């Protein structure tokens, strides 16, 4: 069968599948119920659900990239009985009056996350990541299916294709091959670069077979102890051996590898015949939202146990049948009992399901501060920290210490010091300069309890506990005069901003 015919058939199948499910489950509700039931087979009954306010904080951080404003919280409460599902739909599918804003914020938030998946923390990056992030944001905003995005990354024609990913991660066939198998297949092949993998079945010819697909990318960087081109597409030389282009799990090299080999690799990568592609994809989205992968060690998928693997395979298959529709998968996960589980409480089965606290990203920290503190955001406002360099400074410092998973708080002393004493905090707690403090402290409509409650709601998306209210009232009552009492609100705000709850989403 000729290639165009096969392609056409694939397309037709995809279109049919897409329309079919789209009608049946346009906002992921059926898939969500399936995940609830399937999860119970693995973990038993889910933990008790989190509170409404916790849920709002989670979905705003996860989907929009910042904490909700006080008025957004109010709107949510007015949504009625199905408010959680409605909120998810509003933020994911861009329904309601703030449609454009949410679509834009959600796309850039997803793009930042996927940029960190593509370029894992600690990688020495060759250039600026901005183009890659823009490429990803455009794709997410357009609603491009996940498999199509990954095909574009796989079948690049130059080091600058797909946001310049190839160049960024090192500009050699071997660095690209290692990254593609890690990102898309949950397979860490890098070890097999120099020797056969010590614990799994991967061999050197698996690694170099994948690298060989990229041997003719123009602009590859020549490293003396790295690979050499043989002058032929689909072949690569390393330490005297020549390797021919070969996909994983196959023993024989690709036929006629000089013809459109990367297009063929891309098609294989995202096809149902590839055992790891869809499973790894859903595992990554699950990790993004729930904090821990369905199978936690995402990049060693081979080590998952049979039950975890079966869940991932089933979910991956559903994702594929739904045309790799990213937004629908995200909405479905957010509507599950697993997503909504109260943090730090366990199921009684084994292995247990537990929702840990989730560390928010550097950009989420700044954007949440911007929201909580009512910082000016207009580009023409000379005091807007977003545009003065304050955002970049904060994101860079926090970005120096990022964990490998959303559960891993990796910040050190320099990062804590910036949150404690940095310019954004200094301004926030200064009654003369802080918009939030002035609004709260000087408003004639608030009594003292309401002032405290408003600060809690704006910063932590919750109400103070009775014990907290009592401590803070005593604390304020001990102030000798009105001036120090007003100033003390700055210290309370400082503590809220620096509390574990601010950076660790409950």
């Amino acid at each position, binding site marked *: 069968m000729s290639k165009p015919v096969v392609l056409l058939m694939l397309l037709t199948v995809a279109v049919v599948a897409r329309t079919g499910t789209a009608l049946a489950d346009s906002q992921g509700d059926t898939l969500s119920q399936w995940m609830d039931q399937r999860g119970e087979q693995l973990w038993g009954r889910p933990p008790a659900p989190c509170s409404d306010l916790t849920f709002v904080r989670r979905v705003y951080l996860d989907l929009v990239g910042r904490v909700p404003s006080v008025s957004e919280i109010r709107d949510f409460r007015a949504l009625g009985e199905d408010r959680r599902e409605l909120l998810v739909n509003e933020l994911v599918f861009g329904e309601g009056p703030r449609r454009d804003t949410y679509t834009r914020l959600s796309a850039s938030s997803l793009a930042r996350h996927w940029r960190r998946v593509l370029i894992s*923390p*600690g990688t020495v990056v060759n250039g600026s990541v901005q183009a890659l992030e823009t490429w990803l944001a455009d794709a997410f905003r357009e609603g491009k299916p996940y498999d199509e995005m990954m095909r574009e990354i796989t079948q690049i024609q130059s080091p600058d294709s797909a946001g310049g990913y190839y160049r960024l991660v090192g500009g050699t066939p071997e660095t690209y091959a290692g990254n593609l198998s890690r990102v898309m297949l949950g397979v860490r092949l890098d070890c097999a*670069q*120099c020797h056969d993998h*010590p*614990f799994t079945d991967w061999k050197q010819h698996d690694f170099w077979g994948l690298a060989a697909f990229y041997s003719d990318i123009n602009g590859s960087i020549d*490293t*003396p*102890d790295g690979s050499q081109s043989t002058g032929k597409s689909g072949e690569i030389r390393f330490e005297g051996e020549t390797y021919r282009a070969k996909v994983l799990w196959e023993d024989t090299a690709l036929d006629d590898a000089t013809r459109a080999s990367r297009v063929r690799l891309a098609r294989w990568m995202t096809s149902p015949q590839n055992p790891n592609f869809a499973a790894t994809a859903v595992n990554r989205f699950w990790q993004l939202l729930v904090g821990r992968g369905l199978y936690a060690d995402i990049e060693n998928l081979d080590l998952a146990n049979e039950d975890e693997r079966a869940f991932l395979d089933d979910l991956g298959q559903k994702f594929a049948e739904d045309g790799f529709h990213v937004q629908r998968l995200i909405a479905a996960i957010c509507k599950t009992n697993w997503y909504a589980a109260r*943090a*730090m409480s366990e199921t009684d089965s084994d292995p247990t399901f537990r929702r*840990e*606290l989730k*560390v928010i990203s550097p950009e989420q920290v700044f954007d949440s501060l911007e929201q909580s503190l009512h910082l000016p955001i207009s580009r023409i406002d000379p005091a807007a920290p977003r545009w003065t360099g304050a955002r970049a400074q904060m994101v860079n410092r926090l970005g*120096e*210490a990022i964990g*490998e998973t959303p*559960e*891993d*708080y990796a*910040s*050190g*002393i*320099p*990062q*804590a*010091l*910036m949150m*404690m*004493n*940095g310019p954004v*905090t*200094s301004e926030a*707690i*200064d009654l003369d300069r802080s918009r939030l403090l002035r609004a709260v402290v000087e408003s004639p409509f608030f009594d003292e309890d309401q002032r405290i409650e408003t600060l809690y709601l704006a910063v932590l998306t919750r109400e103070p*506990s009775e*014990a*907290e209210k009592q*401590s*803070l009232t005593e*604390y304020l009552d001990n102030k000798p005069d009105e001036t120090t009492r007003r100033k*003390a609100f*700055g*210290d*309370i705000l*400082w*503590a*809220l901003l*620096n*509390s*574990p*709850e601010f*950076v*660790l989403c409950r």
Partner: protein
Amino acid sequence: MSMTRSFETFSRRDLFRIAAASLGGISCSPWLPKLARAAGTKRPPKACILLWMAGGPSQMETLDPKPGHRNGGPTQAISTAVPGIELSQNLPGLASQMKDVALVRSMKTREGDHGRATQLMMTGYRPMGGMTDYPVLGSLISHRLKPADSPLPGFVSIAPFRFGNLGSGFLGPDHSPLVVSGASNDPNTRANLTVENLDVAGGNPDALLERQGLLNMLRQGAPSSSPAAIKHASVYDQAMRMVETRGEGAFELDEEPTELRDAYGRNRFGQGCLLARRLVERGVPFVEVSLDAAAQGSWDSHVDNFSAVSSMCEVLDPAWSTLLTDLRDRGLLDSTLVVWMGEFGRTPQINPNRGRDHFPDAWSVALAGGSIAGGQVYGKTSADGMEVSDNPVTASDLYATLLEGLGIDSGGDNAMGNRPIPLVDEGGTPIRELLE
């Protein structure tokens, strides 16, 4: 002036403790050891400075020259302060310090990949696929030697450059490194070789006490079983103590005489070595200073090895030798072990690009100070440098020697939960000849 200031920080810190104790239920009397130390003339505490040569320096152009052999290339040997011991021409400063330096020319390891070899030399354990998250050397030492009352962390890492993401492992966040960034060689770059934001926000130092109290109250709401929350608390406590004392002034390199700063070298590594001395003086038990690249290349000298290493040594040699002199002048050399090492050596054969590639079979490290018996060479390589001909030393042997050199029993264990994990991987034997 310094008297007044230390009194101020002292009393403020104690006030702070009392406040923290009353709010958080911590009970201790931290001022007692501090007073005892101020009153007595105790010997300085043991410390270790690791000069980490990321990329793997060539032994033939540094500690084990082979002039006259084809593999030796154009590198010449020079005599040193110890008759009979020669170094490469690239290290004249170190040559003058040789009486305090012990060379190990017989390192024999088995990892030739940057990442895996870094893990081996940084933790003392071979990478085994992540069954146990082994702590790096700095965390091991911090765990053993960090004084309970120190306001500074037990492990400071200056301008780190490493292949791989390594940390305190199962020893936890209390022994994670304070990373002092040094993104540039330009001393005027913002935040270079310093710790920013040590001034209390709002300018009033007394506010710190109240904020600590409020923060403690808020922490009670955070689940204590969450590893992230535990780490957050540890990091904030350490950061608070740094603010109380402004890091004991350790990061104020401007206090140093111009001539001394010049002698260390006005570059990131040189000034980092100076900062290391200031930290050790203030009781930090482990400081790591990294050097990976200079104007004309890096230690990873696959191409043009000879000019690369010579350029690297122009940065290394003044800093290293001035550090040894400076520590000696201050009476700190006997208590401070200075280790120089990378993750492996370079191939004795010179490749077609006049470079040398990765070589773990026979390479060199250097030790000085602490309980190390200086002025000697341990181990030997063959005339062509291809193999160890005398007294091979493994990573575990080296680790055992380092620990003993710091007065730590190398046969001891760490605890990971209920499981004992040996400080040194099995088979590691301290090299008695190197210890005083």
